[in-house]
């Protein structure tokens, strides 16, 4: 193994990459929560057509690679003369992809609350919205939190797809620095540690939460 001081000269590349990874993940998290909620509502809708659209969305985007979805925005749209930045293309691709997984987690959570509870609260005089708000969602929330946390970890890891389209994320920085310093494994080791700084606390938190929620029920 080489000398870590060689990497010090590239401090700015690593800082920029780290911040890009963080901001892409955060932006995609917010967007994919929005997408996921909308799609989950469609899937749970009583209207056949809406339910079908929700299901088609989930199945299509879960079963095709993230890389292809990101390429659609990074290469496909420019081929129609619509140029968007690599960062935006990556963030949108990530949101669309992760949205499908979040929609499934939300749907599974809401459906795990027995039907009888909705019927009981409706017949006690609550409106649909009230029964959702006070009876169904608080219970669904507990079930949904661990899988949502896992999606959050996956999102951070998957944001490395930005490196493929030169999106300037942490892994892109690793690629640039390693090809300039020829300290390949040293750079990878350093970048791996930076990823773990984000993902390990997240995974650990999810595990703890999962255990606490399991004990409560």
């Amino acid at each position, binding site marked *: 193994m080489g000398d870590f001081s060689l990497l010090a000269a590239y401090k700015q590349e690593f800082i920029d990459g780290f911040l890009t990874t963080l901001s892409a993940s955060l932006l995609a998290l917010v967007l994919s929560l929005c997408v996921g909620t909308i799609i989950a509502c469609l899937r749970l809708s009583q209207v056949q057509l809406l339910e079908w659209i929700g299901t088609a969305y989930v199945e299509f985007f879960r*079963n095709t690679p993230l890389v292809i979805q990101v390429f659609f925005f990074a290469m496909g749209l420019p081929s129609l003369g619509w140029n968007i930045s690599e960062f935006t293309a990556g963030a949108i691709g990530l949101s669309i992809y992760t949205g499908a997984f979040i929609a499934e987690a939300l749907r599974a959570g809401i459906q795990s609350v027995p039907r009888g509870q909705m019927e009981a609260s409706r017949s006690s005089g609550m409106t649909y919205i009230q029964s959702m708000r006070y009876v169904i969602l608080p219970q669904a929330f507990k079930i949904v939190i661990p899988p949502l946390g896992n999606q959050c970890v996956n999102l951070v890891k998957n944001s490395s797809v930005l490196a493929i389209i030169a999106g300037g994320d942490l892994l892109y920085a690793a690629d640039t620095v390693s090809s300039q310093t020829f300290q*390949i494994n040293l750079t990878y080791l350093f970048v791996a540690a930076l990823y773990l700084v984000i993902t390990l606390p997240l*995974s650990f938190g999810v595990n703890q939460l999962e255990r606490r929620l399991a004990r409560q029920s």
Partner: protein
Amino acid sequence: MDFANAFDPTNLTFLLQGFLVTLKIAFFAILLSFVLGIVLGICRYTKLPVLSHLAALYIELIRNLPLLLVIFFGYFGLREWGIKLPVTMSVIVSMTLFTSALVAEIVRSGLNSVDRGLIEASRAQGFTYIQTLRFLVLPLGLKRTIPPMVSQFISLIKDTSLAVVISLPEMTHNAQIIYNKHFNATIPILLIVACLYFVVNYSLSLASRRLEKKLVG
């Protein structure tokens, strides 16, 4: 949009050649990570002091890193250490290293889900620890791992597309070559590629759902 070039027979054949490489890589990586994952999962499940800690360390580190970083390591990183694998081999190695950690976690939680009372009963009947593991915990526990295992393998098939970064001649890479030549055909080609991935992955997920229903009854 240029549909003529996208559906040109030479281009389609070229895509399908890539598709075969995708399937070949996925097949070997699935096979290897299945075996390695079960071994790691059992190491983690048995509370053997050193073995289970080493397995835990490996699993936690690898599953919190981006696969793309592992792919970079498996190609450029190993090269730096003098291990010059051909690109196909290197992708199989990287994907196996990564997926086996995730399979191990699935195996561990499957084995943990086997009822304690059953294990105690079997020990009380005079079965040794190994016999209990072999005849009770493994058959019961592994059955429950089928659905999450299949979705992990679907992820693997999708993730072979990440190997575009090291120019593995798989489907996504071949698609890139075609639309770099015929820029206006980018979107149609990405759609064809997405559909091919979808057909394989969706059939797998349908099969896994059917199998699950049959096993659970």
